């Protein structure tokens, strides 16, 4: 019954989404206020209906209703409750429902926080999002319903994929989708502006907070995915340039470019059309990513069940949404005015250079990810593109961006003075270069790559500090009051850039100084790694709710003194052919110790195991940096100018008309 209620809810939602997608947009074109006013209530109704459907699915899991096919394939009676809830997004159908749920959540949010926008604009934005919702609802109802029945119902389910039975996996997809799907708002803003012909600086100001919040979520989502892979996959890696990782990284790159471009458009009313194109790109890459993961077109760790029929549907949807928006762009863009002028050396130019760099980077990742497909489709010999390619291509593209990151915030708008920037930054430049050249020696091994990476990280950090210092110096009062008087948008930017510096520092240090030992070890044996010694105490067996495990014990000493115990595990879930590895990680601010069990060797009676021990210096800075970046985004969102006036001021008149002389 509950599953049927869920299906029914989705069908009603489809009807609402159709109304939402058509009526307000037509109303905006015709100036029909009644039709336009339908947008907000429809969006809210859609949200309620999708939440109801989601609740039905959750209820089916909690009740162990194995007559629902999706529940039977992703859950089992013994599964702990928290994973029954997370099993919602454990498989293809449920994750599509999650996509839809989050899309409708964003629609709901837009309906709440759009009082300052002109009605026509709101109508168009929600209408566009409604149309996207129509696509997803059709996809779910026609090809991927999580409410399909399995009769006769089996006694027990097939269990959730063991890799997913983990806190990281619980948080990663929702966070990722909040970002991925959140770019649909920026996309809808862009389409609304193209449709309405009112593309101007205020449009950029309104779009910015939505873009920033989606970007922050996406940063967190990718960070969580990487951290989860690190401890679950058992070999200490945290980024593989796997097609699905790339699928989430490309929208992030485009989204970063978009955020910076919006700043230029907001300030100068310039490059509006370019910013709109970026908004279309960012969301298109999100949709493309969704396609790539589910269509079976690429080999990947993540791939959901592959079905050409589903692939065709999503591709069709992609073609309509992206093709349609690019066609709209081609039609409307040439008519948009140029905005204001700025010099070749100016903050605007630096921000736009950032755009080029990030977009080319996204393009390079896209090229590398799809290359095997291109080659295969053309009938040429199959090729693989992996980390060696991506690292070689991506790093040289990002290095100039990092360098500019130090300069950009100090450049004046409209016309910047290089000598002035030089004076302000000469200290930062000198300190960062000298430290970068000396630090590797202190860490034990000098390499050009380590020095360069450290220089970039220290440069960004020092330049950001220099920026803040010169800004604070021009104010009066105590430090706390001076900081409080600075705009949050500015502080957010500084924080995010510091996050990047921390991230780059972490990546450089861990890649240059990590070490690994692959050993065969018996009870009582030790393995040494720098100042640390690991003594193997054996593996004991046990059982938990839905798996049996072998739990290893290692006693760690540092320079002879005890430094803790580590317990790597091998878990065998019922119904899985291969055991999963859960590494033991001793986390620290300056290093991680990482131990993972390979396999038992020597036959029956032997207590020896193959074990991998890793020393990973500063690896937590990788994720710490991402967290700081997301924090910066959140800080920027709390800027005063985004707080809605309590007096409900009428919509702001556009500062520049769309028909300014070209």
């Amino acid at each position, binding site marked *: 019954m509950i599953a049927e209620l869920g299906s029914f809810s989705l069908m009603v939602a489809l009807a609402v989404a159709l109304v939402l997608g058509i009526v307000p947009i037509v109303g905006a074109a015709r100036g029909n206020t009644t039709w336009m006013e339908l947008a907000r209530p429809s969006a809210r109704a859609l949200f309620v209906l999708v939440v109801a459907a989601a609740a039905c699915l959750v209820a089916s899991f909690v009740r162990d209703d194995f007559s629902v096919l999706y529940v039977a394939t992703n859950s089992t009676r013994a599964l702990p409750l928290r994973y029954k809830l997370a099993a919602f997004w454990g498989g293809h159908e449920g994750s599509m429902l999650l996509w839809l749920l989050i899309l409708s959540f964003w629609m709901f949010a837009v309906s709440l926080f759009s009082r300052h926008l002109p009605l026509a604009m709101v109508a168009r934005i929600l209408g566009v999002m409604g149309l996207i919702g129509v696509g997803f609802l059709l996809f779910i109802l026609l090809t991927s319903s999580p409410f399909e029945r399995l009769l006769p119902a089996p006694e027990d389910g097939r269990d959730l994929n063991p890799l997913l039975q983990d806190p990281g996996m619980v948080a990663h997809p929702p966070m990722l989708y909040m970002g991925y799907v959140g770019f649909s708002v920026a996309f809808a803003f862009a389409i609304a502006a193209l449709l309405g012909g009112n593309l101007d600086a205020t449009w950029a100001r309104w779009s910015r907070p939505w873009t920033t919040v989606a970007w922050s979520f996406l940063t967190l989502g990718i960070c969580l995915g990487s951290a989860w892979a690190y401890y679950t996959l058992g070999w200490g890696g945290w980024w593989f340039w796997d097609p699905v990782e790339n699928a989430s990284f490309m929208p992030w790159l485009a989204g970063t470019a978009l955020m910076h471009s919006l700043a230029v458009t907001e300030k100068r009313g310039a490059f509006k059309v370019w910013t709109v194109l970026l908004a279309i790109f960012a969301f298109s890459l999100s949709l493309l990513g969704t396609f790539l993961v589910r269509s079976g077109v690429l080999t990947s760790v993540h791939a959901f069940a592959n079905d050409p029929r589903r692939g065709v549907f999503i591709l069709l949807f992609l073609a309509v949404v992206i093709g349609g928006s690019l066609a709209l762009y081609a039609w409307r863009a040439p008519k948009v005015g140029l905005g204001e002028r700025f010099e070749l050396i100016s903050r605007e130019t630096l921000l736009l250079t950032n755009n080029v760099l990030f977009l*080319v980077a996204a393009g390079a990742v896209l090229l590398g990810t799809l290359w095997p497909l291109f080659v295969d489709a053309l009938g040429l010999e*199959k090729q*693989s593109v992996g980390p060696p*390619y991506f690292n070689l291509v991506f790093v040289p593209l990002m290095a100039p961006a990092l360098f500019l990151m130090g300069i950009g915030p100090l450049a004046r708008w409209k016309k910047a003075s290089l000598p002035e920037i030089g004076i302000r930054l000469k200290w930062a430049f000198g300190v960062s270069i000298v430290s970068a050249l000396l630090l590797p020696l202190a860490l034990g091994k000098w390499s050009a790559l380590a020095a360069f990476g450290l220089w970039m990280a220290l440069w960004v950090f020092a330049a950001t500090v220099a920026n803040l210092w010169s800004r604070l110096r021009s104010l009066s009062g105590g430090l706390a009051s001076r900081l409080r008087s600075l705009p949050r948008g500015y502080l957010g930017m500084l924080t995010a850039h510091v996050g990047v510096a921390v991230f780059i520092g972490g990546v450089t240090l861990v890649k240059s100084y990590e070490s690994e030992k692959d050993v*065969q070890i018996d009870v009582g044996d*030790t393995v040494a790694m720098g100042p640390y010694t690991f003594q193997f105490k054996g593996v004991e067996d046990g059982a938990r709710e839905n798996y049996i495990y072998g739990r290893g014990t290692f006693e760690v000493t540092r320079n002879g003194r005890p430094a803790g115990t580590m317990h790597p595990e091998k878990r065998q879930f019922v119904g899985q052919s291969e055991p999963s590895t859960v590494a033991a990680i001793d986390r620290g601010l300056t290093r991680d110790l990482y131990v993972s069990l390979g396999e038992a060797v020597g036959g029956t009676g032997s207590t020896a195991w193959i074990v991998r021990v890793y020393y990973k210096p500063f690896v937590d800075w990788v994720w710490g940096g991402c967290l700081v970046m997301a924090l910066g985004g959140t800080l920027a969102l709390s800027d005063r100018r985004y707080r809605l006036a309590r007096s409900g001021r009428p919509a702001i008149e556009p500062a520049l008309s769309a028909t300014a002389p070209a």
Partner: protein
Amino acid sequence: MPSRILPLALVLLTLALCAAGREAVPVGQDPAIERRMMTLAQELRCLVCQNQTLADSQAPLAADLRQEIRELMQKGQSDEQVKQYLVARYGDFVLYRPPLKSQTWLLWFGPGVLLVGGLTALYLAILRRRRLLADEPLNPDQEERALALLSEDEGQPS
């Protein structure tokens, strides 16, 4: 008395042996070859678990191929020769770093070309705008209004 000493001695001996332990044996016999092999294996694709490198994969074929590479290196073959050996049997698919040949020019040079093209287009676009948007000075009325607006604006973020 003796009947108590013997068990005690045995216990002490066992404890001593336990405390001693040995250094664990590395899986590869020759550390230099092992390191070379693992570095090379990081750039090779496992054909069974196709999303892992040959270095990381636990698949039996991966273990066999790692052993094969060890032996080839012990016979004195260079990294390039080992790669050729594998490509002859499994094709370019086994390389995670695509070879540079005319078929892969687009892949390897594409990003660079795109970068140069993008920066050039940006540069030209900005110069064009500058030409088209010469700044016009304000007339006295506009200037007065501008000053009035500026003085009533408080703490606008930059």
